[in-house]
């Protein structure tokens, strides 16, 4: 290694100026740039295939379609970084929706009802967090059980039939349907959530602990980090964001369906993984995960515009996931 010339004393090592972006940061930006390139290429190709594709209307619809899920992706990404996973997000989105809806129907004003719905979601996160950190189960099993239990709770609350919420006041519905100068509130909320958490994840001390814990839990403990606290709070955060998404869905649809969100978790985990979150923990970015979400959404939208049968769509999306993860694996194993 040529950092040091022979003959110098041991302690004198030339150090490159600190603060430059290192290998890891470069790898991450490389992946994000790649995703952006693929998304752009797809968009351009699609604009030739279908004149409707690159219209503001279609782009807005596409953004709308992934904005609310995008809020859930944020929480999932952070949870993946800490080394966890949450299969219950789809159920929790629905739970927040039906709890808020039922409370509204029972006479509460919709804002308070929503806050309670979100709090109830956070509570589910706390219960899962308890089982993970105190009882010592893993995230996969705990959230798998929660997925089923919470879905059951949705059915109990609604007695199995959708709640019709057309009486929701317009100023609440605006949350999901209205827009600020042609930009839907949904998209604004989404962008805000992403911006805040992306910033925090990169800069905040509290979130740095998430990376430490996910990278090597034992080493984190040997650094005085209370890893069970970190895991607990991240689990709660993920469920809370799912709850927030549920409330926005309610405002958007003006209804609360007890079967809503089934299978959503797979889409969300796929997006985060395409965007670079590792299932082993320790790495991932929110920006990347959102790009992953955008890619999936562009593909879905293209398939619809191209009139590809619904039966094919899942298969194609699955293949994209496989390809993305394989490329990633290849890039990583090459590093050694």
């Amino acid at each position, binding site marked *: *290694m*040529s*950092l*040091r010339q*022979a*003959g*110098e*004393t*041991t*302690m*004198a*090592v030339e*150090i*490159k*100026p*600190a*603060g*430059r*972006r*290192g*290998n*890891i*940061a470069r790898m991450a930006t490389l992946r994000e740039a790649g995703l952006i390139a693929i998304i752009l290429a797809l968009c351009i190709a699609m604009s030739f295939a279908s004149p409707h594709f690159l219209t503001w209307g279609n782009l807005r619809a596409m953004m709308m379609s992934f904005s609310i899920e995008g809020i859930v992706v944020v929480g999932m990404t952070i949870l993946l970084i800490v080394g966890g996973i949450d299969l219950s997000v789809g159920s929790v989105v629905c739970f927040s929706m039906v709890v808020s809806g039922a409370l509204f129907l029972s006479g509460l004003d919709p804002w308070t009802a929503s806050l309670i719905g979100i709090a109830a979601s956070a509570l589910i996160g706390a219960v899962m967090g308890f089982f993970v950190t105190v009882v010592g189960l893993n995230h996969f099993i705990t959230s798998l059980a929660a997925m089923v239990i919470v879905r059951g709770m949705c059915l109990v609350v609604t007695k199995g039939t959708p709640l019709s919420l057309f009486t929701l006041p317009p100023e609440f519905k605006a949350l999901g349907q209205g827009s600020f100068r042609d930009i839907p509130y949904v998209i604004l909320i989404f962008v805000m959530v992403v911006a805040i958490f992306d910033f925090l994840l990169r*800069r*905040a*001390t*509290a979130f*740095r*602990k998430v*990376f*430490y814990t996910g*990278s*090597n839990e*034992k*080493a*984190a*403990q*040997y*650094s*005085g*980090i*209370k890893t069970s606290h970190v895991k607990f709070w991240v689990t709660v955060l993920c469920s809370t964001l799912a709850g927030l998404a549920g409330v926005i869905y309610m405002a958007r649809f003006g209804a609360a369906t007890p079967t809503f969100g089934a299978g959503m978790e797979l889409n969300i985990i796929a997006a985060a993984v395409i965007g670079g979150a590792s299932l082993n923990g*320790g*790495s991932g970015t929110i920006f990347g995960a959102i790009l992953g979400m955008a890619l999936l959404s562009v593909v879905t939208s293209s398939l619809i515009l191209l009139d590809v049968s619904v039966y094919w769509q899942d298969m194609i999306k699955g293949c994209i996931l496989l390809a993305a993860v394989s490329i990633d694996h290849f890039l990583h194993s090459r590093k*050694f």
Partner: protein
Amino acid sequence: MTEAPILEIRNLTKTFGPVLALSEVKFELFRGEIHALCGENGAGKSTLMNMIAGLLQPDDGEIVVDGQRVSIASPAAAQSLGIALVHQEIALCQDATVAENIYMAAINRRRMPLMNYQKLYCDAQRVMDLLAPIPVRTRVADLSISNQQLVEIAKALTLDCKVLMLDEPTAALTESEARRLFAIVRGLKQRGISIVYISHRMAEIFSLCDRITIFRDGRYVATDPIEAVSPDDVVRKMVGREITQLYPDKLLPQEKPGRAILCVEGLADGKRFADVDIEVREGEILGVGGLIGAGRSEIAQTICGIRAAVAGTIALNGSPLNIRHYRDAVDAGLVYLSEDRKGSGLFLDMPIAANIAALDLGRLTGRLGLLDRRAEAQQASCLTRRLGVRMAGVEAAVSTLSGGNQQKVAIAKQLSISPKVIIMDEPTRGIDVGAKVEIHRLLRQLASQGVGIIVISSELPELIGLCDRVMVVREGKIAGELGADELSEEAIILLASGVQQTSTQQEEAKNVA
């Protein structure tokens, strides 16, 4: 030696991105010789071993085995050429049993669909017993790091190989295990097996090896028969300068150590040890010796709150501490350097700067709870410079560093909070001679500034050369304490093992020293 070498490396070059790890090095290994490979941390020793074992591919140059030029594409290819490597970093399946790990290669090659566990355990135990009586049905994850190292060695012994490469096999071992290993290695040599032996312990190299090759900065320096060189020559060639004083001056007898900094009384964890009293006084370095499994690390971890105590009091500078979690200890200024840097010391995938900052993020946190990245980088470059870490920059991942340099980062992490008491478990594990001198000097300097220092070490010369007082632990009890004037290898071994040694063993201990 006129016969053709069994393994020959010609002009081998290896780069990692911009880092030139090896530059046109050569190396020759004859049948039945024990060949030492020496060099500073980051000189490229492990990189060369990894290429011979098929884990890495050279950029340029030739590997010649038995006169045939070969390209070794994978570890399996190396195995079929009769080449085995004991890694510097432990690479065992943590969830499998010791026996399954030992016979991993054989199990992998096995054609039969079912396993004969009875035979597997039986065979594995026989191999294991050559080194240490570790029960082979235990899960590897439940073993201490030094026992894992022994398993790693046992694993290599089962391979039917012509060339055995040992990359710092004794770094985590105590004298007695090391001695067993040497006996085995000599036996292998007798059977005509060639051995490459990497170590930073000069005494071992001189008692065990036939020839020595030295690398510096990724370049080949020299190969000599061991009789033709002295330890000083070797060090000079490795480091490129003279090292005059291996250990810093101790406290003089008239300089009494000051007041007690750390006071531990009646500590017990209910399982591994009981009734432990420790006192560290200002200005002194306290050593802790003992055999592997004696409970040294457990005691240290319990003091720091990493493991739970059932009895005992801890006082820092006279005031009692209530430590329930390691966080409390760190906040009070009490830190512990783990002996297992890969498992619990470092975040391998994360940048060097982030690793060093991990102990106390609070110091680097500005307003609004945001991390001050610039302060983090500055702290890292300051400490890495002080410890002489060779790296591409503080944002490089720790996994790109050589073993010894990783260890320096682990030490830098402990120093980052300006601790009041440091408990170091094998602080110089895998660190080269030159850097070791610097680290010892640093510890002495810290001690004289009033930092309490406890050094747990399996390396007797280190305990004797560095410490003012050595406490020996045997089977979870403090077996005794030796003052500066009573320190000797025999005295420590005697306390550690609790039995009178035979004279031949004492002889051997002297030779090793």
